[in-house]
């Protein structure tokens, strides 16, 4: 019955999206449908209804993003003029393989978060807050999709703020379980706002220097004024501002607390999407607005991005080893993984950027699967501390197995998605022949993966080689939590074998970034 209805719904959505009347409007519908879902959640004012609305919205978004990705990889970029006003005057949305991949990540994780959230959110959030929680989740979803879809520099800022503001609220909802979520959200609020302010100052300076906000137009008008101090200052402000959102190594202080104390579903969603979108914005500004030759003359890649990426890979992984809270450990591991993505950027080659984008996708599914599996343990045990999850390998065999399988992908064992991204990254490093330095970098990538083995092993040891705590009744986590986790774990392995989606799209996107195929 339910399956029949679901397949009917899926068919209906697929047919509607494919139809001639709707298809040209998909770039804006991708953003506008979640936007309309948020107020609907509030107006219905019923938490079951809100969950249903969120689920239907995310499913439609997923269908749209799959359709868009399919379209742009075959036919090339789509441009959409909001309100019929032609760019550069009006706001333009452009979907190309680069952002279509990010849109797919966001909407895919969105669907799974909402599915996972039915039980997890019901347990962690007070019933009276759940409706507004889903409304905030939808706003955050809208914001991230909007940041990704738009081709207007100021519009990026607006959507970035929509997603950030709702994220602060979502993180603060963890206060129901741990009061410290409030300070975590406050820290994030302060850091995020500083980041957003820097970002908007940067855009303001760009506007001052060029008189336009449309990305393509900006890119053209910047070329003759590369030496302009205003443009240089704008570049610095934008990189630092968005760097705060990316959690580039020295700007990462908000991240561990925000991920640790947020409700599980929020952690899953944020870990898999928010920093990824920020990296996307950074790439788009660096390589499409400022153009690669500007970036190379500013020497930011080799003197800022590269060293900090390597420090992040080691320092964050090293800190992760000593965490007593598994959730915090995974948060530090995220900072390290961001290091890998930035390392790919700093290679400044097609292969390097491909590695970044593949890792963007692969790390999103891997980390989401890990946080989901951990969340299932938290659901049963009530805590993510290492000593509380000991012996769960016997009591919760499925959950523990899923955690271990997902962590294989985090470490980068062959046949998992994580392996593919690290392989391409190492390939990119070795491709830059002629200097021992790049061989050293390749070695460092492998060495830092070993650190991941150490911190993951600590969890595995606790799960399987310690006696479960007596006097506590522990059962396997419910299927409602395990199935979404299972789906992501399958994805972790699927994308370890079939890389046609990730690798080809990422390669196409890398070409766009380096100005090859536009």
């Amino acid at each position: 019955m339910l399956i029949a209805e679901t397949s009917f719904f899926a068919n209906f959505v697929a047919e509607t999206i494919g139809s001639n009347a709707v298809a040209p409007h998909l770039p804006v519908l991708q953003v506008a449908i979640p936007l309309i879902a948020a107020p609907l959640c509030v107006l219905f004012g019923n938490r079951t209804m809100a969950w249903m609305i969120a689920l239907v919205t995310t499913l439609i978004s997923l269908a749209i993003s799959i359709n868009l990705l399919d379209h742009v990889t075959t036919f090339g970029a789509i441009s959409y003029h909001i309100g019929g006003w032609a760019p550069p005057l009006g706001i333009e949305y452009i979907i190309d393989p680069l952002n279509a991949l990010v849109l797919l990540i966001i909407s895919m994780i969105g669907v799974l978060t909402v599915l996972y959230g039915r039980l997890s959110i019901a347990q962690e959030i007070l019933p009276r807050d759940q409706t507004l929680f889903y409304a905030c989740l939808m706003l955050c979803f809208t914001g991230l999709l909007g940041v990704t879809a738009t081709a207007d520099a100021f519009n990026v800022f607006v959507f970035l703020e929509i997603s950030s503001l709702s994220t602060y609220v979502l993180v603060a909802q963890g206060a129901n379980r741990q009061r410290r979520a409030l300070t975590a959200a406050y820290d994030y609020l302060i850091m995020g706002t500083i980041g957003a302010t820097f970002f908007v100052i940067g855009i303001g300076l760009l506007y001052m220097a060029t008189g336009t906000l449309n990305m393509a137009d900006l890119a053209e008008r910047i070329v003759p004024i590369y030496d302009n101090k205003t443009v240089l200052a704008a570049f610095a402000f934008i990189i630092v501002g968005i760097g705060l959102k990316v959690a580039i190594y020295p700007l990462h202080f908000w991240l561990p607390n925000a991920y640790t104390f947020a409700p599980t579903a929020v952690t899953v969603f944020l870990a898999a999407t928010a920093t990824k979108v920020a990296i996307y914005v950074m790439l788009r500004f660096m390589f499409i607005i400022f153009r690669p030759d500007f970036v190379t003359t500013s020497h930011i890649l080799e003197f800022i991005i590269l060293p900090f990426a390597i420090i992040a890979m080691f320092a964050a992984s090293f800190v992760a080893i000593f965490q007593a809270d598994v959730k915090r450990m995974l948060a530090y591991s995220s900072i390290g993984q961001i290091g890998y993505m930035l390392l790919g950027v700093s290679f400044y080659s097609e292969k390097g950027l491909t590695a970044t984008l593949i890792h963007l996708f692969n790390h999103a599914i891997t980390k989401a699967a890990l946080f989901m599996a951990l969340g299932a343990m938290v659901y049963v045990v009530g805590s993510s501390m290492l000593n509380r999850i000991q012996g769960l390998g016997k009591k919760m065999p499925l959950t523990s197995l899923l955690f271990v399988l997902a962590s294989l992908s985090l470490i980068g064992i062959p046949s998992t998605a994580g392996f593919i991204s690290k392989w391409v990254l190492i390939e990119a490093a070795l491709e830059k022949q002629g200097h021992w330095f790049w061989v050293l970098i390749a070695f460092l990538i492998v060495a830092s993966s070993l650190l991941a083995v150490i911190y993951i092993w600590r969890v595995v040891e606790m799960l399987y080689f310690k006696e479960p705590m007596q006097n506590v009744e522990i059962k396997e986590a419910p299927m409602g939590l395990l199935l979404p986790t299972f789906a992501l774990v399958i994805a972790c392995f699927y994308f370890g074998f079939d890389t046609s989606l990730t690798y080809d799209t990422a390669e196409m996107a890398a070409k766009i970034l380096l100005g090859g195929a536009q």
Partner: protein
Amino acid sequence: MMRHHVILRVITKVLIGPIILFAFYVQFHGDYSPGGGFQAGVIFAVAFILHGLVFGLSTVQKVMPPKWVHKLIALGLLIYAGTGFAGLFMGGQFLEYNVLAHDPIHGQHNGILIIELGVGMTVAAVMIAIYYAFAARPPRISDEEW
């Protein structure tokens, strides 16, 4: 009901009408003159906040229950996004006003008026919600809870 501050109470009652009227003026004159949803929304909310300051939170919440405030925030956004969708359904782009009436100029007028109505509603409700949130702040968190 407290009987002091007679002047404040009387002046407030006298002022609330003109404040709301002025809010509507700014709202509906927004397409010709400076003004529009943001300014009108704030002015509109001022009437309620003033009422709350003078007569107390519970009194103003009888006029504008917190639950309604939430719905109004959502409704405003829905009107805005809904106008965008109306443009789509009438055969234009998202948020294209030209198609909202028989000729484009009227369409632009209609579009901006409806959008500003949505903006005004949301801004007013958000201002009131912020006032409610601060005025009805729960007691501070005790040290043990951190």
